[in-house]
């Protein structure tokens, strides 16, 4: 039963958002259903089990959306040197005038507004559908809010190989940004999505058809107050989804990744590196559902925590009845650089098939003093020795990235973070 307080907070979150107009009937229905979901679940509160380690208060304040602004300096964004196919969102608004021509051979791109106004759209099977399915076991009210109210974002349909798109959010004005992307990877097609910058509330729904491949690399290293992201992926037979997020510093960051392998022999890999100091609070919450037979899932999260930073990992592997030959793996580790840093991990397995291999592990500790002394005894200064050990620690998450250039870009970010560390 939703409490009155939770429901009323949800109402306030909804009423702060302008009502989208001129949309097709199916879109209006999807929005209404999302509103209902949000009102029924209510806004998240600290007492909710799923928010035990992260106080959602900063995320449930009604959003005041930003308006306009100019593009920021992107020279520090490593993705800009890897691709010029950038879709730029300034103050939460998509700016076609500042973006590259987005459609490429094998990749059709439309804005969310165009997509939701069309009577017939392949995105109809995705919008709000994956998000709703992802709430089967746990409420995700902030994702429902996004479905109910978001008006900015892109719909990407990959029909061939080689597609790359860089989604970048510039927040240079006061106010929040809410973004929603829809992705459909058709049978045998491939797409790489890069994301950088931060928006207060981001949802991506990705439907990967049989044999399709989706790669997602995300960089969250810019100043931010409080953000929540949701990534929902549905993975077909022989299809593959790999996502990696590097989160550095900033305020409250909650990243939920929710995937379901619906076909046989699918693969879903979710990795992340967290580099946090000061008062940062970075929460990676992952929910992996195995439905098909012989699917493989991996969760690899490495947290480097200094100052009074908090790292959270909640990871669940849910194996449905009949999902035999499941291979599920999960590891979350933290290195605490200072006494005030904290790491909390909550691994969960829920298994209804009898022929599966699932493993999980979690460790927390300081940098190995023996290794530090060994390096220093050879003349490596303490900070450099620490940096070497931290890079080695983060590497185990970064090596989950297939593409060497992208992996190198993330290594460079780790190096930069360490160089900037006090």
């Amino acid at each position, binding site marked *: 039963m939703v409490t009155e307080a939770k429901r009323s907070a949800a109402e306030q979150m909804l009423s702060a958002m302008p009502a989208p107009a001129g949309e097709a009937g199916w879109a209006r229905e999807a929005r209404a259903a999302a509103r209902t979901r949000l009102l029924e679940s209510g806004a998240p509160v600290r007492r909710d089990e799923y928010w035990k380690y992260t106080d959602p208060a900063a995320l449930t304040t009604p959003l005041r959306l930003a308006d306009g602004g100019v593009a920021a300096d992107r020279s520090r964004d490593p993705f800009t040197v890897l691709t010029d196919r950038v879709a730029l969102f300034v103050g939460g608004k998509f700016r076609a005038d500042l973006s590259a021509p987005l459609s490429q051979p094998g990749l059709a791109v439309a804005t969310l507004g165009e997509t939701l106004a069309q009577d017939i759209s392949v995105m109809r099977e995705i919008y709000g559908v994956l998000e709703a399915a992802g709430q089967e076991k746990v409420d995700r009210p902030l994702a429902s809010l996004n479905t109910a109210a978001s008006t900015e974002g892109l719909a990407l349909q990959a029909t061939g190989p080689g597609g790359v798109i860089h989604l970048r959010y510039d927040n240079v004005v006061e106010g929040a940004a809410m973004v929603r992307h829809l992705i459909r990877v058709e049978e045998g097609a491939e797409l790489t999505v890069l994301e950088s910058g931060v928006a207060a509330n981001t949802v991506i729904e990705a439907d990967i058809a049989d044999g399709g491949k989706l790669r997602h690399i995300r960089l969250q290293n810019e100043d931010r107050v409080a953000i929540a992201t949701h990534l929902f992926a549905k993975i077909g037979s022989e299809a593959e989804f790999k996502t990696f997020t590097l989160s550095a510093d900033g305020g409250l960051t909650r990243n939920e990744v929710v995937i379901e392998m619906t076909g046989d022999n699918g693969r879903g890999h979710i990795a992340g590196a967290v580099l946090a100091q000061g008062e940062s609070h970075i929460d990676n919450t992952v929910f992996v559902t195995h439905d098909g037979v012989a699917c493989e899932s991996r969760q690899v999260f490495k947290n480097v925590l200094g100052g009074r930073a908090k790292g959270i990992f909640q990871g669940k592997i849910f194996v449905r009845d009949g999902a035999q030959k499941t291979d599920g793996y999960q590891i979350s580790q933290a290195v605490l650089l200072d006494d005030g840093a904290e790491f909390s991990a909550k691994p969960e397995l829920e298994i209804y098939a009898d022929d599966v291999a699932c493993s999980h592990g979690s460790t927390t500790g300081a940098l190995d003093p023996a290794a530090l002394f060994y390096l220093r*005894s050879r003349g490596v200064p303490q900070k450099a*020795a620490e940096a070497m*050990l931290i890079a080695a620690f983060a590497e185990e998450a970064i090596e989950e990235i297939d593409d060497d250039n992208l992996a190198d870009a993330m290594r460079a970010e780790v190096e930069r973070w360490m160089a900037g560390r006090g």
Partner: protein
Amino acid sequence: MLKIKDLAVRLEEEDKTILRGVDLEVPAGAVHAIMGPNGSGKSTLSYVLAGRDGYEVTGGSATLDDEDILEMDPEERAASGLFLAFQYPVEIPGVGNMTFLRTALNSQRKARGEPEVSAPDFLKLIRAKAKELNIDADMLKRPVNVGFSGGEKKRNEILQMALLEPRMCILDETDSGLDVDAMKLVSRGVNALRSEGRGFLVITHYQRLLDHIEPDVVHIMAEGRIIETGGPELARKVENEGYTDIMKSVA
């Protein structure tokens, strides 16, 4: 070169005194050996000289060419020419041996105000040094000491010594875990580094290493003190009579 005077050291965690006034002087060009039973404080002496945490110096001094090394950080001691070959070299997953060696060499050079060695020059240098110690390219590429056999680890220590060219080398139980062939190889590496300007302190429990690395002076350590000093014949006496008799005769 290395002067240790009345050095007293306490193990912080256990509040236990390990070294009770060690006096020792190793001149440049000399090889001194320290032998002693387990628990005599040999390894503690090597760790204290290299600067490991956890030990409190309660008295005495240790200088390298008149510089007080006990006041320095471990990396400063290394840059000023002190090297400890570890009894148990540490495995460091994820840090490539080559990266480690190059960072170590260039950090020391930088600390001494010398120009850094470029990547191609370093490659040439390390290949030449590695060849002398039968260290193949694969061992250089792998993470530091990870999956190395006991012999490979010790050879990697000597490689570091050959590369860093320290003035004062301390070898802590370098023979432990080595078969005869590996011991010969390691000893050859050490002997190749013997020179007029370089001092060695070879810590060992057994005399057999000293057949390969012949010391000029042998010290016997027991209960945190040097109890006897002599020539190479002292090592053979230990081999024949054991430590117990020597300790009795001194007492």
